[in-house]
């Protein structure tokens, strides 16, 4: 029966005709993907780039067609692999830089930080409690200072005189201003690593993140106590504020992100755990990319600004300006106007 049908149409199966008409498109798509694999996106001409999504859609539609009319396993496997390769390219992380930047700075980052506000408040509270505890412990018994600050004191210990302490707040012993940028880069890389760890440790039920945040507060409290005791409290606060408002803010966001994933691992809420974790990861990932940006800025303030701006009032002014800017940005950027709705962007 089927044979005689085949004879009428030039002895060809439907699946063969289908293949003949579409094969050119598939080959073209495959060639372009090879090219991208070999030498990157830039090797494609503008026309090719515009064509690529069309070829991808045609391959995907060929696949669903082939699955319902062809029993040629090689053909179906080929189309699956081809569509999968094209899919990875089309829906990969690489989009136009302009869209990426707009999505991130206007829609992504501030919104993510706002959604983390409860965790952020908790992290802030942890630091404040740590600060008070650190101060109180040292005020009660100065020998706590060595225990609490220990290795990172860098000469700012109990035996140091007020003059020594004042010196650590000054320009430092950098031999030339040319060496300031490397110092800034060092601080930025170091702090970013700490922030990433602080965030990732949240996966262990948030406990290490909590410990790390608390300890930051404790050592800060202890140091402020030390300087305040020698009458240098204001100068030290100024020294800390110029970069600290940005840096500590960033670390608080990292800690908040860590708390968020820790919470979602334990209490996924109304969603399935899988969906809850995926949502939490994307939200915190966005916030953390922002943290890296903030720490780069903080590194510049700490490495360059703090060494060149020596007046305490100017230092505090810079620090508070940054803090205000951050707060304004996180509070108001990317808010949808009333009536626009908060539905998903298309």
């Amino acid at each position, binding site marked *: 029966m*089927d044979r005689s049908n085949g004879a009428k149409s030039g002895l060809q199966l439907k699946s063969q005709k289908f293949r003949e008409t579409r094969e050119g498109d598939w080959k073209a798509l495959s060639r372009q993907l090879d090219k991208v694999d070999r030498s990157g996106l830039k090797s494609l001409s503008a026309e090719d780039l515009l064509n690529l999504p069309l070829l991808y859609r045609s391959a995907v539609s060929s696949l669903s067609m082939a699955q319902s*009319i062809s029993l040629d396993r090689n053909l179906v496997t080929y189309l699956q692999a081809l569509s999968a390769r094209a899919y990875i390219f089309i829906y990969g992380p690489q989009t136009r830089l302009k869209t990426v930047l707009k999505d991130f700075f206007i829609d992504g980052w501030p919104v993510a930080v706002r959604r983390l506000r409860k965790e952020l408040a908790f992290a802030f509270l942890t630091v404040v409690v740590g600060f008070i505890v650190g101060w109180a412990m040292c005020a009660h018994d100065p020998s706590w200072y060595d225990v609490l600050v220990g290795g990172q004191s860098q000469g700012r210990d109990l035996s140091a005189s007020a003059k020594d302490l004042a010196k650590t707040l000054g320009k430092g012993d950098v031999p030339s201003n040319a060496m300031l*940028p490397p110092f800034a880069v060092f601080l930025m890389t170091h702090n970013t690593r700490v922030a990433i760890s602080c965030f990732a440790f949240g996966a262990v039920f948030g406990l290490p993140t909590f410990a790390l945040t608390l300890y930051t507060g404790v050592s800060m409290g202890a140091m402020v106590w030390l300087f305040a005791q020698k009458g240098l409290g204001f100068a030290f606060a100024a020294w800390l504020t110029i970069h600290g408002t940005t840096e500590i803010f960033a670390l608080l966001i990292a800690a908040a992100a860590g708390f968020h994933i820790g919470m979602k691992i334990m209490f996924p809420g109304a969603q399935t755990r899988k969906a809850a974790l995926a949502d939490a990861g994307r939200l*915190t990932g966005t916030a953390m990319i922002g943290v890296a940006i903030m720490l780069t800025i903080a590194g510049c303030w700490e490495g360059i600004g703090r060494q060149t701006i020596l007046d305490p009032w100017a230092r505090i002014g810079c620090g508070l300006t940054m803090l205000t800017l951050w707060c304004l940005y996180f509070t108001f950027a990317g808010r949808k106007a009333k009536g626009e709705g908060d539905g998903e962007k298309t």
Partner: protein
Amino acid sequence: MAKKPKADKVRRDLMADAAWGDGARSVMQVTTPEGVQLPFVRASFGERVGALLIDLIIIIVLPVIVMILLLAMPLRGLFDGKHYTTLSILAIFAMAFFFFIRSGYFMAFEMGRRAATPGKRALKLRVIAHDGGRLTPAAIFTRNAMREVELFLPVTLIVSFMQHKSWFGWIAAIWAIGLVLLPLFNRDQARLGDFLAGTRVVHMPKAMLSYDLVDMELDRSNGLTFTQEQLAYGEMELQVLEQVLRERKPAVMRAVAERIKTRIDWREPLRIEDRPSDEHFLRAYYGALRAHLEGRMLLGRRRKDKHDTDRRDPAANAPKA
């Protein structure tokens, strides 16, 4: 009675040669934004460990090479207190490089234009979003930041505590092994970072489009035709036959041709020169069977394998008058 075990044997023989590379691998259906279901082959645990090892070797070896280069360069003259600018550029470069290696390697390569680290590229692995949506930079950041808890921190703890012979090292070791083996204990073979970022790692073989095996004109001219009763196999057997024909191993083709001939009561032409070779016979049979099955498919009556009897098929069930 005696026929049934024989039929099973044929099936086993046919299947024994069915070495579809990914037949045994687990497949994940992902719905693309266009609403098409795309099957992705999950990356095996071994492949992922392999890719990670390649990346770790790069991470360890590259800094060593850079250090050697830095030491080999004639830099001593720079420390005389006059070349601060050069020194600072060099220092920035070195620090940025080590930071990249330690914290940015995985993220940068996965966000980059090739969308995979060198290790993943070598083993043809790619990262996709589990729900079929776009893979975002945030997801990539999270999945790789989690390596801190999954890999770097436990390893650091193990090393430092083992030196002090502390029991804490053993806890860190158990933690690390538990997290590293996590992909073995869930259906998606995802690690912690994958769960948190909603990503999955898949294997991307590059499939080649081979020629179409069906050439009906040639079969017709060879005079090989089959009755509908003789086309007694289903889609699974058709695929096995396709595999046999694409691999073209003479011994296998001979064995398969003989099995089929026995099963369908094939009558060889009387003259020896008219008898088709095994390959000709199999290709003709494949073409006829595919035409038959695809014809049924178009009518919505698919036949999975030879044991699948279609109740609605009048030819099979009609009471004989």
